[in-house]
């Protein structure tokens, strides 16, 4: 199954695209710092790096969506400016972006061809030819739906296939794939690999971004490593061992990141019995104990967030009860959940977590206003006192407490969201992908803090898709797959291999299933 597909061509060809000294800053973040990247014809270059290393930013610069603050991009040795997405496709660069950037209201064919549809002689869109071409593309990538389907009727995996088809609809020399397999099933992934092989044989340069080391070692010819927005190394895949690649990526060995967990696990705090939802999840049963860190692992889209949000009173479960400290409680709204000591730090920080537009202190006190006010009237001094206390506890870095939370870096925003919930003095804190998109320093702080909370007797549920994090932090792990609990593992059973196996629904152990 993991036979290497083709030998790496000789590295003496000159690159089609080469980025040199590229820098990109966002307010408060240096996403890329003088990085370099070369893409060679007929070769697959894997770009690896942790979350937030700047991979997607690189993609957006190459596709004309972002403008770099400095550095040069060369195509066939000539410096170019890619001012718009159009410029990029003119230059022969096409990409499958990490987020699906498609249009629900349009048909599959229109999604594939928007912006460059075939025209009739009158200059109108040639629908017949568009659908014909689209069908051909869909067949080529093995998509099981018609070009006439409306996009909204497709699931996430099929949408991703549309995105792939869209990238291939441009006659490009450079194809970029930003985590293309994250949402695909096994069969589709195999077809994608074949496609990569075809593109390679056509002499195209491919940039392949992935966190899955097995696939990197299977299809890539070269690698480039970024860390914290900086270039670390590049070279031939055949010249490097997996462990070394990981080390370059993280800058230290993986075990070191996680704090020692020396907390005591007490009696049962929360018991969930038979939670179900008509379309999202079913048969969820588990218990959570005092001072415990319970990990929820699964592939993206496994339904973990949906379930957590039901537990928090946002989506309504159709069945199931929840017992808190031995009493059955009905949670119909987040307000009920908070009253019962359950709080939720959501995955989508910008939309669901921080209230961008409100100052930091108001974000922190929002769910605890009852405590800082008298008879419904605000008491600013009390608010500042509370905000000060928790921002210090979380080591928040900010200019002042009345600063808009939107001006903070992602990690500090996350701290504000956590502070907001800690200020309510909860019993159970649910952290959904708590370290997604935050820098390594903050990540360690969050991990350390999580351990500290558990040590203080708080029960923590941590949803994470990062295996090292799950294993490093959790006392116990529940694996979810397709809306159901696939397994519960504890102690020495918590190996990367078991987790991946349960998450992917593979019954027989496979080799090289995880990094």
């Amino acid at each position, binding site marked *: 199954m993991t036979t290497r597909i083709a030998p790496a061509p000789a590295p003496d060809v000159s690159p089609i695209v080469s980025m040199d000294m590229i820098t990109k800053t966002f307010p408060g973040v240096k996403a890329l710092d003088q990085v370099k990247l070369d893409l060679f014809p007929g070769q697959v270059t894997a770009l690896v790096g942790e979350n937030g290393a700047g991979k997607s930013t690189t993609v957006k610069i190459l596709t004309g969506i972002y403008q770099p603050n400095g550095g040069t991009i060369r195509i066939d040795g000539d410096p170019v400016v890619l001012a718009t997405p159009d410029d990029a496709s003119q230059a022969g660069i096409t990409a499958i972006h990490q987020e699906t950037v498609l249009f629900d209201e349009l048909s599959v064919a*229109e999604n594939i061809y*928007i912006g460059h549809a075939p025209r009739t002689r009158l200059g109108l869109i040639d629908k017949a030819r568009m659908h014909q071409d689209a069908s051909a593309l869909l067949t080529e990538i093995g998509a099981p739906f018609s070009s006439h389907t409306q996009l909204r009727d497709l699931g996430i995996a099929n949408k991703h296939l549309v995105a792939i088809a869209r990238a291939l609809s441009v006659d490009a020399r450079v194809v970029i794939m930003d985590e293309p397999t994250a949402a695909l099933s096994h069969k589709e992934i195999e077809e994608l690999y074949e496609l990569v092989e075809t593109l390679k044989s056509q002499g195209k340069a491919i940039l392949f971004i992935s966190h899955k080391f097995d696939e990197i070692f299977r299809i890539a010819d070269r690698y480039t490593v970024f860390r914290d927005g900086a270039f670390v190394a590049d070279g031939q895949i055949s010249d490097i061992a997996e462990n070394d690649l990981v080390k370059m990526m993280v800058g230290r060995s993986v075990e070191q990141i996680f704090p020692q967990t020396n907390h005591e696990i007490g009696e049962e705090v929360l018991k969930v019995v038979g939670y179900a939802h008509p379309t*999202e999840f079913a048969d969820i049963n588990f218990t959570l104990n005092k001072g415990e860190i319970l990990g929820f692992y699964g592939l993206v889209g*496994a339904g973990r967030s949906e379930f957590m949000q039901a537990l928090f009173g946002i989506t309504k479960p159709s069945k199931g009860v929840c017992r808190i400290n031995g009493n059955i409680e009905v949670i119909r709204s987040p307000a009920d959940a908070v009253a019962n000591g359950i709080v939720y730090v959501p995955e989508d920080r910008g939309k669901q977590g921080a209230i961008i537009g409100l100052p930091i202190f108001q974000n922190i006190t929002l769910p605890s206003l009852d405590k800082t006010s008298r008879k419904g009237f605000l008491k600013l001094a009390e608010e500042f006192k509370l905000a000060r206390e928790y921002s210090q506890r979380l080591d928040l870095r900010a200019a002042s407490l009345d600063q808009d939370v939107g001006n903070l870096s992602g990690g500090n925003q996350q701290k504000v969201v956590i502070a907001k919930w800690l200020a309510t003095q909860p019993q159970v804190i649910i952290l959904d992908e708590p370290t997604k998109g935050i820098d390594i320093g903050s990540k360690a702080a969050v991990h350390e803090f999580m351990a500290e909370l558990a040590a203080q007797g708080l029960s923590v549920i941590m949803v994470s898709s990062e295996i090292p994090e799950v294993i490093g932090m959790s006392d116990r792990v529940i694996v979810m797959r397709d809306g159901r609990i696939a397994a519960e593992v504890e102690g020495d059973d918590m190996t990367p291999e078991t987790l991946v196996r349960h998450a992917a629904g593979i019954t027989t152990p496979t080799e090289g299933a995880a990094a």
Partner: protein
Amino acid sequence: MSRLIPVRETILAAAILVLLLLISSRFAGFIAPSNLANVFNDTAPLIILALGQMVVILTRCIDLSVAANLALTGMVVAMINVAMPGLPIPVILAVAVLLGAVMGAVNGILVWKLSIPPIVVTLGTMTIFRGIIFLISDGKWVNSHEMSPAFTAFPRMELLGLPVLSWAAIITIILFGIMMARTQFGRSIFAVGGNPHAAVYTGIDVGRTQFWAFVVSGALAGLTGYLWVSRFAVAYVDIAGGFELEVVAACVIGGISIAGGIGSVGGAVLGAIFLGVVKNALPVVNISPFWQLAISGSAILIAVAFNSRSGRTKGRIILKSAEATQ
């Protein structure tokens, strides 16, 4: 499947048919072809404006200045006609469309370049355009006998049994049908409204598309301005006062989502026709005209409640996929 039979349009068309049948049970003459042609002719301005508004709403904007734009253009062409009675109609038409487009461009620029919310921009330009009519006309009317015969005759001129006014609506419908389905601009409009973030990734300039949507809406308002003034053979400050809300109402009834991205030419046209039928039927079926407002208000509420039900996004279904693969 839902693509083959556009549900909303079918239901709206059925509602209009039922309405026509009800009316004809009270007054049989209403569904005589000649009368239906009259109703269509009377609804033509609303149809044209609703199509322009549709484009704007699809891009997540709103144009409250269309009626004022119409009135200002109408006054200007009427005054031009008084000053230069010999000016041929095609020139008048060109002036009207151009002037309307310029006013639309003013809205568009403010939305595009200064990112002022469209509702604020067009609320402001609405009052400004009306005020300008007063300033240029000194509040005076331009009456039918001051207009040249050719000027007032144009919208009534019959071609193949239908007045030019009706043809203007029909041609606009056809052009919009082609534009929305078969041109890059038309598809961009859906893309910008449906998912502005993704539109940027696709190389579509959101602001520029909104700008052009305003220009289109303005140009149509200008065209309608001339047609309106010549048809009713009078121009004054207040013509088509409050018409902007009727235009928005037609779009809403036609299933165009105020949140952008969802809607169709057929919907907008049917929405306008629905209102036109109601408006024309009330006087003939002896329902007091005082019922008209309440009826159109209820129609809007029912339509929007209905559209939101049928259009509710299904969400992704995690469990189904589980069942399918097992």
